[in-house]
């Protein structure tokens, strides 16, 4: 059952339970892109066609495995599934532990969908070999990060993603690529150092309490942390995630990086890698540091809300399409952060769903912008005008994607935002109120940009040809994204069905862990999650009766998973 077992040295099979004798989908999914990358590296530099075909086949292979994982996934089970746990460096506690739950499932699927699209939509013509290798390695790193249940393994994957992105920006980017790439690398790398320290500290504390050295988050989740340690560890993890996402005010690398990266780079940075940060928050912050989450939720909610408003305001005066989308991403990630720290099942489900939604429409936006660039050689909004006249189909696709991003119901952005805001309103009303005002700003900057670029009359200077309509190839690249944007707007329930049990397990864990009143720096924690969840018991009693069944269901699942 083990693929590439020799590469891992002596393998101790631990924790095998039923169902794991099946094909090791998750391990394969991480290793396939690595293997294909090695293969591509061996191909001669000139064989462009073979390189592209291999890259595409590799990423499509991952998509196939991801589809199989979706098929195997047990809907309604909130625990980790398809876990493959292999002790790797035993004395040191490092293990190759992968597993998937409702939180990571669709992020993995989204990653598997976006990589082939990014490869197909990539316009980079120079040195396809290196480009393909880096993209495939990045895919392995991203999928590995989403699947790791071992903290150190997660950290290794998380950090590994930096190198390919650095080379993609630096090698194939625009004018200021050197500055952007270095800024991105140093900023995120420095932030990750905090997390590494936090990981080690957590493991030592856990080891001190149990005598077991492990990086397995399922065990680490039961570590008893003093209030101060909890907050410090939370901050060290959050530093890495806040930069990666990014969360205001740690975002300034992103407009540069998104703006200077080649199309595929922007897509992967905003579409996939941003989710590493928000996923990290949900998986590790909420999973490992419940007290700190409850105590610091107002702070993080505030940063999220500021990101929504500030990102929207700054986006409104951008003159560069890519930077505009970068700031709009800051605003959208703000919603995701708000949903993560609202501490309700509705908001957290919406937050996870929104990670997928944002990946889809941001990718589509960046690809469309790349198509404009290919024709006009500029991202500058004032230099573009009246494109709708000669490219109505592209304008139509842009409109659909833009409306999804604005959050128009019937398209995918709405459902996530609605769940986030409605769930946040229950526990943190005023944050939800300000965040809701943020939906106005999305309409302001996107409709303004659309009007500038697509409306009006084209005034070609000199002998410039009229703006060319979308080609079939471009249409095919965008078709799956637009299809998913519409589908998830109309019928997101298949996703939510699989997301909510895992989210409920996280919220339940938060409620249970935050209940024991552990004093924080001498101060007793008076407000627990439970108290925050039901500030209006009289009103909620009506509703809880209908959902108590599903809650009990969740509880059994959590036990089953442990």
């Amino acid at each position, binding site marked *: 059952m083990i693929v590439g077992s020799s590469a891992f040295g002596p393998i101790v099979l631990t924790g095998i339970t039923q169902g794991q004798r099946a094909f090791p989908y998750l391990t394969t999914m991480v290793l396939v892109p690595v293997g294909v990358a090695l293969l591509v590296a061996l191909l001669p530099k000139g064989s462009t066609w073979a390189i592209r075909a291999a890259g595409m086949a590799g990423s499509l292979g991952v998509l196939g495995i991801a589809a199989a994982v979706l098929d195997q996934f047990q809907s309604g089970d909130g625990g980790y599934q398809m876990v493959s746990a292999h002790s790797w460096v035993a*004395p*040191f506690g490092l293990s190759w532990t992968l597993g998937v739950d409702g939180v990571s499932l669709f992020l993995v699927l989204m990653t598997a969908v976006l990589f082939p699209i990014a490869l197909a939509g990539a316009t980079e013509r120079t040195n396809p070999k290196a480009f393909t290798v880096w993209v495939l390695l990045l895919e392995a790193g991203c999928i590995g990060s989403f699947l790791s249940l071992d903290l150190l393994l997660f950290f290794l994957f998380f950090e590994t993603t930096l190198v390919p992105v650095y080379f993609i920006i630096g090698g194939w980017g625009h004018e200021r690529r050197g500055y952007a790439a270095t800024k991105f690398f140093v900023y995120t790398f420095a932030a990750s150092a905090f997390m590494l320290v936090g990981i080690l500290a957590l493991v030592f504390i856990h080891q001190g309490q149990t005598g077991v050295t492990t990086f397995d988050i399922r065990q680490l989740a039961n570590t008893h942390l003093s209030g101060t340690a909890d907050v410090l560890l939370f901050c060290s993890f959050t530093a890495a995630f806040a930069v990666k996402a990014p969360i205001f005010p740690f975002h300034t690398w992103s407009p540069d990086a998104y703006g200077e990266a080649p199309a595929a780079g922007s897509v992967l940075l905003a579409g996939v890698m941003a989710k590493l940060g928000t996923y990290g928050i949900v998986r590790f912050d909420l999973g490992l540091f419940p007290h700190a989450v409850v105590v610091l939720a107002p702070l993080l909610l505030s940063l999220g809300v500021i990101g929504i408003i500030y990102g929207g305001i700054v986006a409104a005066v951008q003159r560069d399409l890519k930077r505009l989308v970068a700031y709009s991403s800051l605003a959208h990630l703000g919603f995701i952060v708000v949903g993560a720290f609202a501490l309700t099942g509705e908001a957290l489900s919406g937050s996870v769903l929104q990670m997928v939604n944002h990946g889809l429409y941001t990718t589509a936006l960046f690809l469309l912008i790349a198509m404009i660039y290919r024709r006009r050689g500029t991202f500058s909004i004032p230099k573009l005008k009246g494109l709708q006249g000669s490219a109505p189909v592209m304008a139509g696709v842009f409109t659909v994607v833009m409306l999804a991003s604005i959050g128009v*119901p019937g398209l995918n952005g709405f459902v996530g935002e609605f769940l986030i805001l409605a*769930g946040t309103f229950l526990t943190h009303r005023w944050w939800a109120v300000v965040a809701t005002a943020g*939906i106005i700003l999305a309409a302001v900057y996107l409709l303004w940009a659309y009007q500038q670029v697509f*409306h009006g009359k084209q005034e070609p200077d000199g002998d410039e040809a009229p703006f060319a309509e979308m080609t079939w190839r471009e249409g095919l690249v965008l078709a799956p994204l637009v299809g998913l944007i519409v589908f998830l707007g109309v019928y997101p329930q298949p996703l939510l069905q699989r997301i909510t049990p895992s989210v409920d397990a996280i919220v339940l864990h938060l409620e249970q862990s935050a209940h024991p009143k552990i004093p924080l720096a001498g101060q007793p924690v008076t407000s627990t999650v439970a108290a925050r969840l039901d500030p209006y018991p009289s*009103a909620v009693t009506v509703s809880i009766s209908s959902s108590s069944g599903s809650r009990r269901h969740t509880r059994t699942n959590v036990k089953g998973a442990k």
Partner: protein
Amino acid sequence: MIHAAFLIPLLPLAGFAVLAPFGRRLGNPLSGWIATVLVAASFVVTVLVFIALFRQAPAHREFTQSWFTWFAADRLNVGAGLLVDPLSMTMATFVTGVSALIHLYSIGYMKHDPQFAKFFTYLNLFVFSMLMLVLADNFVLSFFGWEGVGVCSYFLIAFWFDRADAASAGKKAMIFNRIGDAGFLLGLFLIFERTGSLQYTTVFSRLGHVGTPSLVAIALLLFLGAVGKSAQIPLFPWLADAMAGPTPVSALIHAATMVTAGVYMMCRISPVLHLAPDAGHVIAWFGVATAFIGATSACAQTDIKKVLAYSTVSQLGYMFLAAGSGAYVAAVFLMLTHAFYKALLFLGAGSVIHAMEEDQDIKNMGGLTKLMPITAVTFLLGWFSIAGVPPFSGFWSKGDVLQNAWAVSPALWAIGAVTALLTAYYMGREYFLVFLGERRWSEARPTETDPSSPGYTSRGLHPHDPTWHMSVPLVVLAALAVLGGLLNLPFRPNLDFLERWLDPVVGPYLLQTHFSAGQQWLFAVADAALAIAGVGLAASLWRRTTDRPALEPRFLYMAWFIDWAEDRFVARTGTALAYFSATVIESKVIDGAVNGVASLVRGTGGALRRLQTGYVRSYALGLVAGVVALVAYVLVRVGS
């Protein structure tokens, strides 16, 4: 037959689904006919469902049709399904009916437009959204329709996208609507928090558990959504700008249907308003203030469509006055009759604009009666209807509104009555300037409009009545505008069809008025006198003269400078703040700090400087070395 209700929104959606990919290939006029026939079919189904519902006993006139779970997480469960009751079917009937007529009209009106198929694609999508709005069985699905009509309105206002004014107006409409929508969403969140549901019937059954302050907040937040969608103060300026869209769009979306969505929502939440009378008062006062401001502004406009746009603002104000007073039947009654006569007036205006080759300035018109008799006569009937001249429909519906307003506060009635006089006057002014008097256009005059605009010809002006596609809707709507009063006649208790029909939905929440027959006659005489006075005033002032600067002050032409003030104080402040954020806070403060830390690190010594090679190779090497060191450290710790 009630189970066929799903076909009502589905037929226009099918039209959209066919026309979006294949519209251009189907061409002109086939694509237009497909759209028209599907909406007409939807109208037929609506009527059949209406009849089936009518055959039920009044207490059983409520059906829900659940389709699927749209999205659900924890306590929040939002379904997709329809609520078929007298209110929703009344709305659906007039929406599909008027839509079908305007589709037909558009086949003629858009005949020469290169984007003919696209126009009907949007129009069908609009009808689908509007039907979802009124037929949805829960707030969120209604919001889907609510946003859908807003988006279609954006598409259709900016339909001639190469015109700067149209593009800006589309954007403005969407943003103003979005402001209201934020309030609407907050209202939904509060409803969900307080009742644990967003299903209409469930929410209304749980209102007993909700405190009055929350109910007032819910009502006012939803009203904020209505203020945006239905163009009330202070969010009305978008509607005047929206006239940049094709005229059938103005008739359908910006007069008859979409803008009344807010009124529909107020009627739908009548159980909430009933328990929150304070909110009702606020709504009534906003409504009457909007009615007055809209009517005064209409008096000074020179664009044939802008007169109608401010008139629509004013009439919508009346509807909110009624809904806020608790007179939901009067609100729906006025909504229906307004849909007839205002759609008629807009289509008539479109016919005139065609004849004038896109010149919309009423000062350049005159003397069209003989040349376009059908348009002139139907426009006259529309004018008398909106003016409230007995026995035209507006007389009955506006009378109903004013009578109920009196029951709440005579002050509301007084402002409403003055507005009624103004209504008769400004429409009269428009009628005299457009159709009567001497011709202020020349047959030889080449058009002044942009040669690239649709419908442009270089010929001189030869005004004439339009093709049958356009005349038939005019005649049908004129008939409805004249006879619409029959829907709900006062005096005799068995003639108030609309009131009895809507009774199962709004009956328990209606304002109870107790006027004697004599008092009712008094109201009727007052209304008729006001209408006739307005008509007479217009005739005496505008029959011979085309210029009366004293009666067209800039203050009213600029609609009380509200748009100007909003642009000046809100939009410009926002822009300045945004520039400050982007240029100072973002680059100098936040990114400045980041770069500052970076250069600080860089400058801390010659030895370290060597590390800043800029090559990732060395960074990667550092990464690996760091990890190795840490691993070694941990191994040592673990080993010891």
